[in-house]
């Protein structure tokens, strides 16, 4: 799949940007702070509906608009050409200008082909895989970063996952609120029955989808790690669901097999959950471990090894996305090539040639060089405008 058009209005550093796009490689050069990352972030947001940096939605709206306009609105839209035909996706972020000293609150609305839709209907219309320096956080960051990685990745591949995850999160919030009420001896414990049932059902769907996708990603990443670090140890990636031991084995079974056992366990742990005022098991506490030669990569691996592991994972994601949907995702390489040696850069670029469309940002217009990427169209990003570099475009 590829983007045939992109427009941004009042998004980060872009007041107004309209690009007509074709398949192929696009190298976007600009000095640090010019907004190169914002451009890729905007494309990723149109795919996932989430901001890459987990920032507040209002932060996505251009600062000028927030300052100048009483009802600032940021608008992102893209025309996507995929195997299923052309589709237009649009995300509109509306903020109320922040009162003095208060951050602006924002609402998000979504449209598919001009019709208002829920986020879950938009996700997956455009699929992207974003490579960025922040990927190291998947290896050495907090468990929440790994859960977020899994959620964003699986959401793009499986629309039912988005709905199950949203339902799970809502049920969890209700159940935790009820647990706190019960902890304060308000209400009756059997008021938990409904929420337990719903938590077990949506939770089982989330858990089994995560286990299945992670297993596929782990196999792919291990194979690619060997290519990236030929002399290195073996990379193993394991899913660590926050469930008691007999249940952990069930995550590789269908969700229908896991749900009733999950519910039983919630019942057994009910008194402790009430004491804690919180749900102590379930996918909201999952983690993923990355092992290099049997040792946790987050603590004991070198920076270079961690970078290779993150890269292997992203490359595996590209392959999985292509394999599951029959249509390659759009590749976004956010200034990651400059940190790699020639051999690893060649590995990444080899994958770039296998997909329909690639966007590469770089601070140095001469890297990647014209020799390395002879067919790439080259652009310069200057003060919020993207201009083709004519002589290099050929």
């Amino acid at each position, binding site marked *: 799949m590829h983007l045939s058009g992109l427009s941004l209005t009042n998004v980060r550093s872009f007041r107004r940007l309209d690009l007509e796009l074709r398949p192929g490689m696009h190298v976007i050069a600009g000095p640090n702070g010019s907004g190169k990352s914002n451009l890729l972030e905007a494309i990723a947001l149109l795919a996932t509906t989430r901001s890459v940096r987990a920032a507040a939605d209002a932060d996505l709206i251009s600062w000028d608009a927030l300052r100048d306009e*009483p*009802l600032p609105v940021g608008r992102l839209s893209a025309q996507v050409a995929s195997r299923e035909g052309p589709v237009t996706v649009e995300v509109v972020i509306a903020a*109320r200008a922040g*009162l003095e000293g208060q951050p602006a609150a924002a609402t998000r609305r979504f449209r598919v082909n001009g019709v208002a839709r829920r986020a879950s209907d938009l996700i997956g219309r455009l699929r992207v895989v974003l490579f960025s320096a922040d990927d190291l956080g998947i290896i050495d960051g907090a468990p929440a970063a790994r859960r977020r990685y899994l959620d964003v990745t699986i959401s793009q591949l499986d629309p039912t996952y988005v709905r199950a995850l949203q*339902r799970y999160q*809502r*049920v969890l*919030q*209700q*159940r935790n*609120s*009820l647990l706190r*009420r019960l902890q304060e001896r*308000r*209400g009756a414990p*059997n*008021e938990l*029955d*409904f*929420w337990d049932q*719903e938590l077990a059902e949506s939770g089982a769907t989330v858990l089994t989808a995560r286990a299945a996708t992670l297993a596929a990603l782990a196999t792919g990443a291990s194979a690619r790690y060997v290519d990236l670090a030929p002399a290195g140890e073996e990379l193993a990636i394991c899913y660590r669901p926050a469930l008691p031991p007999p249940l952990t084995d069930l995550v590789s079974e269908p969700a229908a097999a896991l749900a009733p056992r999950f519910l039983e366990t919630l019942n057994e742990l009910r008194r402790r959950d009430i004491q804690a005022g919180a749900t102590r098991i379930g996918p909201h506490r999952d983690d993923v471990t990355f092992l290099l030669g049997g040792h946790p990569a987050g603590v004991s691996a070198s920076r270079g090894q961690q970078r290779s592991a993150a890269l292997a994972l992203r490359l595996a994601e590209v392959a999985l996305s292509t394999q599951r949907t029959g249509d390659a995702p759009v590749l976004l390489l956010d200034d990651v090539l400059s940190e790699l040696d020639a051999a690893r850069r060649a590995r990444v670029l080899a994958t770039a040639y296998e997909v329909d469309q690639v966007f590469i940002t770089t601070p140095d217009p001469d890297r990647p060089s014209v020799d390395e990427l002879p067919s790439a169209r080259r652009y310069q990003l200057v003060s919020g405008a993207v201009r083709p570099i004519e002589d290099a475009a050929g």
Partner: protein
Amino acid sequence: MQDPWPSSTSPIQRLVEAFHRLPGIGPKSAQRLAYYILRAPEEEARALAEALLEVKERVVLCSRCQDITEQDPCRICLDTSRDRTSICVVEEPLDLRAIERTRGYHGLFHVLHGVISPADGVGPEDLKIAELLARLRDVDHDATEVIVATNPNLEGEATAMYLGRLLTPLGIRVTRLARGLPAGADLEYADDVTLGRALEFRQVVE
């Protein structure tokens, strides 16, 4: 009555803040409304003020069904032609009106004034459930079926299950609207045909 506003705030500021407290009114709209009133003829402002007071003075909750009414008991509760074996439980008065519009239901109603939602601090004891139990034991002891017509979302389902657990042991058939309504849609906005069918093909709450 105690004045909730300090005397130092100006009348216009008080009005802006009063509008801002209304649902769906942001600070900009509140200002626009306040300045509109300021410029409007005095009769218009007086008519609005009187309407506001009248709604608080004359409209009460029906002591049986908890619907809003100017007479207690309300017109529906007193209507002897209605089927007194069936009580349809709704979240809000507007939902009751939506079901009346379908003309497909001839039983009684009960308004909960909300739905179970722990995250919003609403438990069963915060709803008009004790009032429902009281009327089932007393004035409406002929009722054999309670139709739970809460919205088709998580909180609506939680409320339906709670009522099922509570009322089934009393020998009452507790049913739920058929799943024809779009998930997450509000009853209030459902079209009459869809709502009528959802009522007709209701299912027993397990």
